[in-house]
Structure formats: structure tokens, C-alpha cells
């Protein structure tokens, strides 16, 4: 890296010594600059991960005298006794299946309309659509709890229109609580996908459309035969991000419904937080060993989901 003209003026022996010194000091300087994250990697990241793996085979609740090694009992328990955890997975998938397609349809329509060359005020629309995604889950939770509260705006409108005679208790019904969650979380993040899609559309070269137009292709045909295949690579990444993001939804659930009613909207990550994390759990000494086992299985399942997704999208690529 430092082999420059001035090297030639230094005697050979001295140069190699100087180089070695410089390299050493380069090493030192580099490590100095990343010292904090490097220490943090071992102390606050790697160690906690290993800690989680270790206690997953113990019965452990923070009290030393009650701690004992139980082998795979925690794992056996989660597959045989604790059905709440698997119910949470089911809820998580239900939520994702309701949310992602709807969100993508809305984002796709918005992005397609915004992609028109002659359209004005593009910047304004884009800025507004993106705005909700900067708002905190807590504030969104308050806003939508108010809108969908028993005395809230939504019931007010429905009663005024004569659709219902009495207000709906949105957060008390399983279906309606899920609907509020889906609506508010689409409101929260669809703008991000509009941005991604617009960037993807901008990457499709103009001349492909022009030659298709000369061949007499309709705009619907062009969308399915040109646009969609051309944006497929970006689309796959977007979908992976949405999938992982939606499946690991956590604080949003905790602030909106707290998992209710009756645990019907409890997602996996929210379940782990509410069961084991101080400040959220109602138990004084939560079963940490068991929580560690759940966390380990959750980590592995997320890795498996990403792996399956990648394998599936590779297959898709081969189809083209």
C-alpha cells in the first residue's frame, strides 16, 4: 500500500524494517479504531448468544440453588406441553399472510402510478407515503387504539353510516383485532415498499418498453412480460426483508394488542418478550432456561425460513 517513489531512496535493509514497523503500527491503528465494536462483539453479543445456548439445557430461573442440568427436557417440553409457543408461530404466519400480499398490492398500485413520466407532484406523494414509517410503534399504537377504540372514530363513522347499530369492540374479537393490526401495520410500512418498487422500476431500461410498444404489446401485457420479470431480483430481496421483518414483529404487537384477545394475536417474538423479559413479564422469576431453549429454536427456525426462501427463489430464477 505504501510502495511509493520515496521508497527507492531508502536503503533496502532499512526499508524492509521500516515497512514491518509500519505494518505493525497499521495493525495497531486499525484495531484501535474498531476496539469498541470488537470488544462489544465478544462481551455483549457473542457471550450472550453462548449464554442462551448454554442455559437452554438447564432448569434455570436465576436462583442458583434451583439450577440443575436437565439435558433436552426443555426442548421436549416445548414440543409436547407448551402449545402456546406454536400457537404464536401460527398467529405470526396468519398475520404475515394477511399483511404482506395486501401491502404489496397497495404499494404496487402506488408505485406504478408514480412511475408515469408525465405525472406531477411525485415528490410530494412519495414523501407522504413514507412518512408513517418513521413514527414509533408506541405512537402508532396510541393513534390506532384511539381510532379503533370503542368510542373512537371508526365506530362513530360506522354508526353514522348505519352499518352497525352499536359500536364494535375491535380489540375484543379475534378477527377484528387481527384486522386492526394488519391495517395499522400496512399504514406503517407500505411507503417503504413504494420506495423500493419505484427504485426497481427505474432500473428497467426504457428501450425494452419502446420495442414492445412497436410490436403492439398492451400495457397490461408489458407489465406482466417485462416489468415483473425485470424487477424480480429486487422483488425477491424486498420480499425476504418483508417476510423476516413481519415474522419478527415484536413491539408493534406489544403496544397494540399485547397479544390479546386470548393470545390470538400473539406473535413469536412478542411471546418471547412478554414471557421472559424484565419489564414485560408478569412472573418474578421467569423460567429462563426454558426461555433460552425457546430462543434457540426460534433462531434456528428463522434461519430455516430464510434458507427455504432462498432455495425457493433460486428455483424461481431457473424458471425464467
Amino acid at each position, binding site marked *: 500500500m*505504501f510502495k511509493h517513489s*520515496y521508497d527507492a531512496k531508502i536503503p533496502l535493509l532499512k526499508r524492509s524494517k521500516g515497512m514491518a514497523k509500519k505494518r505493525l*503500527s*497499521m495493525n495497531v*491503528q*486499525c484495531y484501535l*479504531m*474498531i476496539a*469498541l*465494536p470488537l470488544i*462489544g*462483539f465478544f*462481551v*455483549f453479543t457473542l*457471550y*450472550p448468544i453462548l*449464554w*442462551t445456548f448454554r442455559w437452554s439445557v438447564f432448569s434455570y430461573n436465576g436462583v442458583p440453588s434451583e439450577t440443575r442440568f436437565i439435558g433436552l427436557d426443555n426442548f421436549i417440553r416445548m414440543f409436547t406441553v407448551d402449545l402456546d409457543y406454536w400457537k404464536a408461530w401460527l398467529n405470526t404466519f396468519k398475520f404475515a399472510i394477511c399483511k404482506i400480499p395486501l401491502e404489496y398490492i*397497495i404499494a404496487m*398500485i*402506488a408505485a406504478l*402510478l408514480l412511475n*408515469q413520466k408525465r*405525472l406531477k*407532484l411525485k415528490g410530494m*406523494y412519495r*414523501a*407522504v407515503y*413514507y*412518512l408513517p414509517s418513521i*413514527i*414509533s*410503534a*408506541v*405512537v402508532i*399504537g*396510541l*393513534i390506532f387504539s*384511539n*381510532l379503533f*377504540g*370503542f*368510542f373512537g372514530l371508526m*365506530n362513530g363513522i360506522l354508526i353514522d353510516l348505519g352499518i352497525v347499530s352499536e359500536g364494535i369492540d375491535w380489540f375484543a374479537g379475534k378477527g377484528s383485532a387481527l384486522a386492526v393490526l394488519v391495517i395499522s401495520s400496512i*399504514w406503517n410500512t407500505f*411507503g*417503504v415498499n413504494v*420506495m423500493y418498487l419505484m427504485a426497481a422500476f427505474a432500473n428497467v431500461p426504457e428501450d425494452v418498453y419502446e420495442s414492445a410498444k412497436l410490436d403492439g404489446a398492451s400495457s397490461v401485457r408489458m407489465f406482466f412480460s417485462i416489468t415483473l420479470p425485470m424487477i424480480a431480483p429486487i422483488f425477491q*430481496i424486498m420480499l425476504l426483508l418483508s417476510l423476516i421483518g413481519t415474522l419478527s414483529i415484536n*413491539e408493534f404487537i406489544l403496544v397494540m394488542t399485547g397479544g390479546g384477545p386470548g393470545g390470538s394475536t400473539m406473535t413469536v*417474538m412478542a411471546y*418471547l*418478550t412478554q414471557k421472559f*423479559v*424484565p*419489564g*414485560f413479564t408478569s412472573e418474578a422469576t421467569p423460567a429462563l432456561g426454558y426461555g433460552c431453549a425457546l*430462543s434457540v429454536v*426460534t433462531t434456528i427456525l428463522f434461519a430455516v425460513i*430464510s434458507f427455504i426462501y432462498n432455495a425457493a427463489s433460486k428455483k424461481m430464477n431457473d424458471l425464467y
Partner: protein
Amino acid sequence: MNIKNKTTMMISHAILLLLMLLTLFPIIYTFTSSFKTNMELMTEPGRLLPVDPTVENYELIWNSDGFNIGRLLWNSTYYTLINVFISVMISSMAGYVFARGEFFGKKFVFACFTALMFVKTGNITVYPQFDILNALNLNKGLWALMIIHLFGIPVVNIYLVRGFVLSLPKALDEAAQIDGCSFIGTFFKIIMPLLKPILATIAILSFNLYWNDYILPTVFTTTKPEQQTLMVGLMALKSTSGAASNWNLMMAGSVIALLPLLVAYAFGNKYFVSGLAAGAVKG
């Protein structure tokens, strides 16, 4: 042809405008609601504008003992600003090192940092972190959380800076080093001033992230309620207030929590979006 185009534009604007109104409405409704009395909130939810606008709600939360907004705001402010500073410094230095540095184990360290993005053990890891902080005699509280952030690894931000530094001409560093500047010196004197746009992006994204942060500040302030941040306090207000009795306060609190973000978004809109675009390239 021309007429057809015009109708297409009209329909497009109609749909986009509708979507825009749906997006803005909850925010606007929250703003106007914060000037309504609790009575009006409950009895006439269908009205957008308050019958008799009042700033009473703001006075109430300002003077309330349970919801001490001055203290909450102060906690949120220093928590956010210190974390933004940490984030900018750590990610710019690490990004520079991974772009320009040549050191033993560089690839390995970088791979380790990147691999972190894929491990999702959830929040149970706060227990071992507590253990370490206790062993170091750093008690729980917001400051302990900031220490964890100080040693954190902002992977995405590191990627952003690294990409930016790689795009700078290498001749810059070399010229500085020929003039006797050390590797670290080159960073502070030459590279960092050039990083301004990407650091502004990181600063604004971190500001957004830490201002909105909820779960970890809750965990770390359970034993020290006087250190609660605004989000923690707002959520506590929601869960403690019986049924729907405090909506006026919650709306006013939401507005106060929203304002700094909206102001930042109004002025730094392009930084929010450029971070998104830069992140998208990396997947």
C-alpha cells in the same frame, strides 16, 4: 390521445390523492384531537376539528406528576443525542477501517460482524448483559443501556460508510500519508470531512431509531422509573389508565412525541430516503 392521457392523469391523481389522505388522516386526527377535551373525544369521535379548541391537555401533561413530560422529554433527548453521536462515530471509524485498513484478520472480523445480522436470539440476551454490567458495577438504567450501545455493532451503518469510503479516490489517503499523516490522522483530517452526507444520513436514521426506541428502554428503566423515556412513559400512560379515561393526555403526548420527528422529516427528508436507497443496494 391527448384526452385519453388527461383522463389517465386525472384518475392517477385521484387514486394517489386518496392514498395520501388515508396516510395523513390518522396523524392529522391526532393533532386536532389533542386540542379536544376528553368528553368531546368520547362523545363526538366523528368530528375532525374540535368544537372548542383548548390547550388544556398540554397544560395537564406538563404539570402532571404521574406523567412528568419535562423529565421524559429530557431523558429522551439525551438518550437519543448520545446514541446518535455514538452511532456516527463508531460506524464511521469501523466503515473506514474495513474499507481502507489492512490488518490481520480483517476478513474474519468483518464476516463475524456481518453474521450478526442473521442471529435472532430475541431479547432474552438482556440477562447476560445485565450480569456483565452488574459485575462491572454499572447499575441498570438508561446509562447502562447507552454503554451497551457504545459497544454495539451498527452493521448496516458500517456497510453504508464502507461503501462510501470505497467510492472515494485512494489518492487522497495516499497523499496524506506521504505528507506524514498516520492512518488514524488521515481519517480525522481527510476522510471524515468528506463523509458528511453519509454521516448525516446515519445521524438522522439513528435519531429516528433511538427516539422511537421502546423495548430496551423499558427493560432498563423498570427499576429506575425516573429515567423513563418519552415512549416508555407514553406506553405506561396507556396501560395504567383505566379503560379510555386519558385519551386527551395520550393524544397530546403523542403529538409531543411526533413533533421532533416531523420537523426532522420536513428538513431532512432526503436523508431518510437516501439511507433507505443505500440500504436497499446492500439487500
